[in-house]
């Protein structure tokens, strides 16, 4: 026996190679998930930084979304005022009334048609001049016109639709005088378009900035573990085997970050709702503010997950060439 062999303990027996465990998709997925969780536990600081960055980045985006959604819904409410009125000199007979009503309702884009009699018109006039009723002394209902008030559907409230609606309305025989506040409709719609353009631009910049920040943070976390990537590659790990835990880790980071950002946003929203009344001229609780709709929240969560996943994927490409 060789001299050097004497140093070895006698109890060691040759080891039999076992059958592979964790085979199949389920076993593999479980293994990668447990690796990802172990990685997160072993690199708590780096992960806290990454999740924090994703949380803040998504919070900025979601705050912007919240403001935008509320502005849009306010604009929708204002657009209720877009209304077309048809005036008649004389009181219409009930036959004429229903004939006109049918013809107008048949046009596309009409949501509601209501007939205003002379008495109704006078009543409204009076209520508008409340406190100064003396001005209306001697005014008789006969001098006021009767009218049809036509409310339009949401999709038909922009300038072009309103104008083309008025043109077709005027083609109905017997209708001559139509008013719809052209100037107001035009201004309102250009304001709305401006807000949307601004939103798209700002939102676009924000999203690009967020992608940039998050992907760089993830790149740093992966850079800090490039040794591990190298060693795994050198002991014969396939690219997929190296990548999978990192991708899962990115997914978990992104999802956690987005959940935190939604929770924070909700906290901010509630805080604003209940405290802003003291320094604002309106009461936010009754002003019709609303939180993000459910599909937006789902979108944010998905965006967070994708951000983490794609951030990891692109960063890994740089380091796995071995």
């Amino acid at each position, binding site marked *: 026996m*060789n*001299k*050097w062999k004497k140093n070895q303990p006698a109890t060691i027996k040759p080891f039999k190679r076992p059958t*592979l*465990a964790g085979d199949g998709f389920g076993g593999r997925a479980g293994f990668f998930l447990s690796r990802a969780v172990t990685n997160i536990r072993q690199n708590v600081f780096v992960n806290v930084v990454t999740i924090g960055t994703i949380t803040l980045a998504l919070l900025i985006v979601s705050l912007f979304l919240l403001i935008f959604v509320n502005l849009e819904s306010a604009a929708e409410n204002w657009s209720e005022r877009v209304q077309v009125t048809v005036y008649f000199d004389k009181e219409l007979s009930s036959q004429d009334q229903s004939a006109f009503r049918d013809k107008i309702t048949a046009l596309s884009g009409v949501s509601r048609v209501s007939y205003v009699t002379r008495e109704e018109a006078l009543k409204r006039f009076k209520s508008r001049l409340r406190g100064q009723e003396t001005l209306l002394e001697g005014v008789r209902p006969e001098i006021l016109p009767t009218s049809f008030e036509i409310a339009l559907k949401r999709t038909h409230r922009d300038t072009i639709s309103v104008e083309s609606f008025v043109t077709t309305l005027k083609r109905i025989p017997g209708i001559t005088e139509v008013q719809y506040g052209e100037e107001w409709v035009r201004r309102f719609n250009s304001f709305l378009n401006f807000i949307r353009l601004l939103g798209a631009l700002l939102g676009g910049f924000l999203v690009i900035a967020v992608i940039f920040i998050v992907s760089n943070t993830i790149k740093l976390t992966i850079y800090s573990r490039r040794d591990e990537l190298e060693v*795994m590659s*050198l002991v*014969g790990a396939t690219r997929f085997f190296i990548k999978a835990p990192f991708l899962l880790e990115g997914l978990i980071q992104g999802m956690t970050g987005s959940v935190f950002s939604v929770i924070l946003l909700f906290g901010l929203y509630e805080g604003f709702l209940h405290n802003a009344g003291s320094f604002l001229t309106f009461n936010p609780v009754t002003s019709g503010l609303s939180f993000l709709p459910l599909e937006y929240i789902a979108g944010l969560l998905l965006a967070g997950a994708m951000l983490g996943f794609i951030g990891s994927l692109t960063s890994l490409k740089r380091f796995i060439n071995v």
Partner: protein
Amino acid sequence: MIQLHNVSLAYQQDASALNNIDLKIGKGEFVFLTGPSGAGKTTLLRLLYGALTPNRGQVLIDGQNITRMSASQIPLLRRTVGVVFQDFKLLQNRTVFENVAITLEVLGWGRADIGKKTMHILKQMGIESKYNLITQRLSGGEQQRVALARALVNDPKILLADEPTGNLDDANKNQILNIFKEANIRGTTVVVATHDRRLIEQSHKRLVTLIKGEIVEQVEKESASDDQTL
């Protein structure tokens, strides 16, 4: 087991690292690669585990031409080749156990089997009591043995080692050499790059000398009886 035909490799256009290398290493052989620094020892080893591809010539490992392997086949090659790096390449913030177990995890072994096999090899290396220590806290000799354990834990067909005794004292050197020899006896082909003359003289194995990227001398193994005198 290992065949190099006419292999040339240059990192830069006019400075060749290896030049017309022809080398055959049989199954179960033990070979020392030696030569001065910059002779191409490390480059030659890197060719053998697919970290480099030559500019010219063929590299055959176990009958497979690795110069023609696709990127997805390289990992499969590396699973049959254990490598001990000059700088060990251990994960500094991981335990000894984790550093060794990674080889088996990559192969998809189950947790219980990984535990048994890893402790088994750590016992062979004489460092089983340190399995739960962070590798940073180990001495150079101990780190070397962890690196060896990682390379040998899946019983590779080939073991490559780059300056494995670089910073070790004589006692440690002998232990490392013994581990190589034991692996060799179990059937592993061993290639050790070193310029440690004493190590080579002690072990009486085949010796290939490289200078400036060319093989200048090959000394065949001395008689087997010499082994016994170690």
